[in-house]
Structures are given as structure tokens and as C-alpha cells.
């Protein structure tokens, strides 16, 4: 999802994935389904059928892992700020934050083709041998929109498309 600051002096693009599950919702859902799954498991275990509980615990771990991965992906975000002379990229998932700065004059937009056919193409900002990927959580069409927008903001010199 893209959001652009209308301020013309300093352009700011905020990129966050669409996430409709809140933390409270996550816990409510997980607690309710764990109760529905583990209660019969415990009841069967008390009656001697312990394998049911073993499978229930395994399944809850798998569900928890999958929901956690989805939720963690949803916490990822990027802020690309383009000033008159610099391009700043801040990105991370709340735990690991990364800050990069590039000279706007020298910054280039680079597209890397995927190594396999099913993998997505990637968009990088590059300058002086350093690269920083942007738009990682976007779909292809959204990334193409981002690439066009950045090309406008960074300037014609920046759009060279090296690999």
C-alpha cells in the first residue's frame, strides 16, 4: 500500500502491507481456537486417549507459527523520503530497523530480474556501490507504480536501470 505526502518540498512515500488482523484479534482468535481444540484433547487424554492431545498441540503450534509469520510480515514497513539533495530509506519490522542515505544526484533505480521464473522482480535504489531494496512487500503492479513515482522524484539522471 502506498501513501504519498503531498508536501512538495520533501516527498515521503510510506509503504506498508495491507493487514486486517489486529494484535487483539490475533490473540482472541488463537485463544478461542486453542480452547476449542485443546479442551477435547485434554478430555480425551484424561480418558486415556493421549494421542489426540499430542496431535492437537502439534496443530496449534503449526497454526500459531503460520499466523505469527503472517502477522510479522504485516509489521514490515518502508519510508522513502526524497529531499532536495538526499534520498533516505528507513525500513524494518519493528525489531530490526535499517536507515540508508543516498545522494539524490547519484542515486539510481535498478531492477533485478528474478533468479527463477516464479520469483518477483526487485527494485533497488543504488549509489556508490551500495544498494537498498524498496517495495519488497508490494505486488508487481504496485512496485511498477512505485518505480515510476521514484523515477519522477529522484530525477531523470537517476533512472538508468542498471543491473
Amino acid at each position, binding site marked *: 500500500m502506498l501513501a504519498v505526502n503531498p508536501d512538495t518540498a520533501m516527498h515521503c512515500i510510506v509503504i506498508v502491507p495491507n493487514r486486517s488482523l489486529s494484535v487483539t484479534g490475533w490473540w482472541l482468535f488463537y485463544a478461542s481456537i486453542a480452547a476449542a481444540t485443546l479442551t477435547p484433547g485434554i478430555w480425551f487424554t484424561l480418558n486415556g486417549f493421549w494421542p*489426540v492431545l499430542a496431535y492437537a498441540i502439534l496443530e496449534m503450534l503449526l497454526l500459531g507459527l503460520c499466523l505469527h509469520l503472517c502477522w510479522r510480515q504485516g509489521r514490515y514497513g518502508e519510508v522513502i523520503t526524497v529531499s532536495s539533495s538526499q534520498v533516505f530509506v528507513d525500513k524494518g519490522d519493528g525489531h530490526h530497523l535499517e536507515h540508508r542515505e543516498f545522494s539524490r544526484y547519484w542515486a539510481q533505480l535498478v531492477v533485478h530480474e528474478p533468479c527463477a521464473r516464479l520469483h518477483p522482480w526487485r527494485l533497488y535504489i543504488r549509489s556508490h556501490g551500495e544498494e537498498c531494496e524498496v517495495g519488497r512487500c508490494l505486488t508487481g503492479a504496485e512496485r511498477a507504480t512505485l518505480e515510476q513515482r521514484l523515477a519522477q522524484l529522484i530525477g531523470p539522471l537517476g533512472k538508468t536501470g542498471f543491473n
Partner: protein
Amino acid sequence: MHNTAVAHAHHAEHPNGIWRWITTTNHKDIGTLYLCFSLLMFFVGGAFAMLIRAELFKPGMQLMDPLFFNEMATLHGLVMIFGAIMPAFVGLANWMIPMMVGAPDMALPRMNNWSFWILPFAFILLLSTLFMPGGAPASGWTMYAPLMLQTGTAFPFTIFAIHLMGISSVMGAINIIATILNLRAPGMTLMKMPLFVWCWLITAYLLIAVMPVLAGAVTMELMDKYFGTSFFNAAGGGDPLLFQHVFWFFGHPEVYIMVLPAFGIISEIIPTFSRKPLFGYTSMVYAVASIAFLSFIVWAHHMFTVGMPLAADLFFMFTTMLIAVPTGVKVFNWVATMWRGALSFETPMLFAIAFVFLFTIGGFSGVMLALVPADWQYHDTYFVVAHFHYVLVTGSAFAIMGAVYYWLPKWTGHMYNETLAKWHFWLSVISINVLYFPMHFLGLAGMNRRLPDYPVQFTDLNQVVSIGGFVFGVSQLLFVACIILCVRGGKKAEAKVWEGALGLEWTLPSPPPYHSFTEPPAANLIWAHPYQND
């Protein structure tokens, strides 16, 4: 050096040929795989049913020995439940849920691929037991101990196949839950979701809750046979009857797992062809949730004849009858949606109306079976067979067929042949009643299920039933013909295929692009497609 245009063009491509289908993580491709697989299994399970009906055409033994008859009955049940009905609903969920909630794809696409590709191996394993020493499992789809333990070489293979099917179902359910909870478009609140999505969310919840119970039950059978335990062995202190409790704690919610998505489909089709919003959206959601809750506390109505205490009999009788209340709410709401609507009777609507009428017949015979004294009479007779086939064939399978006709133009970009489809519908609906309705009378007269022979006085009705079965089987070839013709060509379908259709999926072109919503749909688009009339 590469320019950006090259990369974008590259990204718009997707692999073709066999690798597309093996490696795909696209929800539409995987939905198509599920639906094709389920159609194949529908014919495999149907072929087993044809053999059963051929044997029962006359009293005495004609075509097969009793063991093989029971193998056919067992495999027919397992293949139809785990191979045809459930994968068909998962296929529909894969195709439609991301489009309905405004997501680009499923939340866990790689897991989606695995959850499908486990299935063919599971069924190859299951069907290969036909060629093993001792034959395929012959204990019925319920796999009751100790009968199941008498299975020959096929026993561990069957258990492993059941585990694989369970793993596939659980992974599919997790994916659906993650997609619905996490990837809804902005503005798509829970109470704005289409009923199909709601029904699937609750179904996935049920699947996750009960699949460990099935896995535990069949693992305990495996341990009893190979590891010296005595979970269900009376000689070792176990109790074979308790297998039935464990199994039906899974088995009854499983019935609703196969019916709730059908409720969702019917709740999509009827408003479209009535050109009215669904009557009582909120009550429909609560009714589905109530049915799901009640499904956990009714399991022993499958076991009234085992000699439970009177208090248990009464408890399970009353809770079972209670299910008629939310089910009645749903039937009332569907009828109220049609009331004074501008109805038209395209094939999906015909299947939906047949569903409402015939599923209600199955529901009524279910209420009869819920009565303990009556159940003592009906138990293990063809009355039960008639009951659950009215629920699962004229219920679930008819809903799936209606859904295929409803969404096929969206999937393929072509309209199906309406004349051929109506032939399919009328042949199916007539033959299915010829097939299943006389089973009620056979059951009431005392004909037992799962037996390859019967007293001569049941001959006439059995011949009628078998003829109905053969006609129903053959008429399904028209369904395949309709699908193939529609995939190959036909009149171009518009984005909004049906005049009265509601929902985000109809805002996409027909066929939809490889990635459904590359941008979340605007909130006003969601609000412009109301599911509630209040």
C-alpha cells in the same frame, strides 16, 4: 544491463505446461487443481457406487464377493468425503475467497501448493490398497475398531493415507483462516464479508478443532495393531466402544464441514437470482456459528443403539433436535430472500432451489433419526443411507454444481451452454430422487445397509434405486461436457456475469487477471456491494 520494461514484462508472465501446475502458488491455479481433482474423485467414488448398485440390482450374489462389496462401500465413502466433497469446497475457497475479500492471493501461497499436492499421493495410496493382499479396507468409512484391525496389508497404508488427507485439510484450513483474518481489503469488516467467506471461516475453525481427534483415533488403532497397546482392545483393558465416541467427536463436525460451505454458496446464489440482498444476513452468520457450536455436542446420536445411559440418550437427542432451529433460520431466510424477488431460473438458481427443497428433506429425516426410540428402529438401515445422501448429495454436491455454474463464466470468461446445463440439472434432480427416496421405504421396511444381499421382497424398490443411480451417474457426463465446452469457448462473459450479482469478485474482469487485486479495492467499492439490507 536490463531496463525496467523488460523486467515488468517478465513479471507479467507465468510458467506454462506441467511446471505451471506443479510449482504454482497462485490461488486460481490451485483452486482449479482442487476442482479438477475433486471431479476426478467424484467419478472414481461414483464408479464404486455403480458397482454397489449393480450388485444390489437383484437379491443374491451376482458380481462380487461380500468382502469386495464392503471394500467398495468403504472406498466409496472415503473417496467421496475426503476426495470429492472436501477438495471441491477447498477449490472453491481458493478461487473465490481472495477475490471476495479483496486480496491479491492466499496468505500462505507455498503452503497452499503443498496442501493440494499431498492429496493425489494420499489417494494413490488409498486406492492402491485394492491391489494389496487381503484387499482394501472393508470396515466402512468409520473404520470402527476392532473390525478395522482385521484389514490385511492395506491397514497401515489406509491409516497413512488418512493422515495425509488430514494434513492437507489442516493446511488448507490454516491458509483460509490466515487469508480471511489478515488480508481483507480496507473497509471489509467481518460483518461485511460475503456469507460464503463467513461459512468457510467457521468451517476452517471446525476443521482445525476436530482433525487432531481423527488423527489421534486412527493412530491409536495403528498402535493397537503394531505396538501392543490396548486403547480399543477389551482383552487388554481397553474398550472398542470408545473408538466410536472418539471417531464421532470428529465425524459429526465433519458432516458440517461438508455442509457449511454449501450454505455459503446458496447464500450467494439465491440473492443474485432473486435480485435482492440476502434476508437476515446477521442472523445467517449467527445461525452458522450456532450450528458449528452444536456440532461438538451431538456426536453420540450416531450411537444410540450401543446402550448408553438414558440421561446421555436424552442429552444427545435434545441437542441434536436443537440443530433444527438455526438450520430452520437459514431455510427461512433463503425463502424470505426469494419472496417477492425478481426471480429468474438460470441453472445455478435451479440447483440452489433444489438444494433448499431436498436438503430440507434430509434435515427432516435427520430430526426423525434424532428421536432415540425411532433411531433404535432406523439404525443401520437404508433410512440412514437415504438421510445422509439427501444431505451430502442433494445438499453438498448440488451446491458445488450450482457454484460451478455460477462462477464458471467468471473463471473462464465464457458463458456455459444453458440448455445443456438445464438438461444436466433436470436429469440429476429427477434421477437423484428415484435413487434416494425409495431408500427411505427400504429402511423403514428393515433393509440393512452394508450388506450385499437382501430378502426377495425388497427387489422391486432396489431395482428402482439402481436405475436411478445409473441415470444419475451417466447424467454427470453432461456436467463434464458443460465444463469442457465452457473452457474451450462460448459467448464472452462480462465482468458482472449475473445482473443481480453482489460482491467484489464481480468487479474483476472475466476471466480475472492472474493476480486478483493488485491494489486493495477502494472502500466505497465494498460499501457499494452491500450484503445486508439493514
